[in-house]
């Protein structure tokens, strides 16, 4: 029985981590056109009980995209300004992966819940 409760706890930690990842992906997509924005990344770490937790958020240090647009208020002498380093394809793929993993965790949670209730059903007879 306690194993099944541990199961639910690990699944919940997985869901929390995946939703944090999904939140960052949507923040990155929302700021895809913000000049000087660096995409945020969140690392996943395993904790002792077998659950997962998210580590500190860090910024992607890759080069910002240089966009040629002479009329832009932030454009320099050469007509270029530094946009964000968000790649929409990567963010969408990442959010899709987070969604799938979230669903897998949810499936596990539901299975543990059903196993618990069928176990309790034995007591009710």
């Amino acid at each position, binding site marked *: 029985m306690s*194993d099944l409760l541990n*199961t639910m706890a690990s*699944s919940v930690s997985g869901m929390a981590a995946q939703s944090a990842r999904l939140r960052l992906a949507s923040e990155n997509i929302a700021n895809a056109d913000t000049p000087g924005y660096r995409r945020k990344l969140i690392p996943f770490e395993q904790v002792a009980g077998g659950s997962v937790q998210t580590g500190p958020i860090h910024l992607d240090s890759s080069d910002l995209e240089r966009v040629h647009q002479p009329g832009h208020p932030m454009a320099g002498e050469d007509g270029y300004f530094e946009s964000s380093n968000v790649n929409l394809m990567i963010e969408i793929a990442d959010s899709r992966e987070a969604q799938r993993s979230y669903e897998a965790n949810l499936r596990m949670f539901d*299975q543990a819940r059903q196993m618990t209730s069928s176990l309790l059903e034995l007591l009710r007879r």
Partner: protein
Amino acid sequence: MKFDIGILQMAQDLAAHASSRQSIISQNIANADTPGYKARDTASFAETFAANAATRPARAGHIVFDTQAGVTESAAFSAESPNGNTVSIEDQMVRAAEVRHQHDLALGIYGKSVDILRAGMGRIR
């Protein structure tokens, strides 16, 4: 009345094995995106049962069923990810379905055995 209570014990062990394995599988799924995480699984019920049969205490009331002892890294179903993670969600889903089946089987056997005991006492529900 002589009733072989061993079947109840075995059903109980099978249910305990199923829930402990479910816990391991949900940890794998929670860590499906954790860099460097290696997928794990318990030994099969037959192996665990054989190992425990040797050390089982004489009294049936003393239940010592240590399923966590046989936890090993499961063979990689698919190639390792670039970040060192060996969890395949599809593989884990198959294992989870096996666990579900095992648990239902154990509870079914337990319930039916108890029904037979009740019938022996002349109380058919």
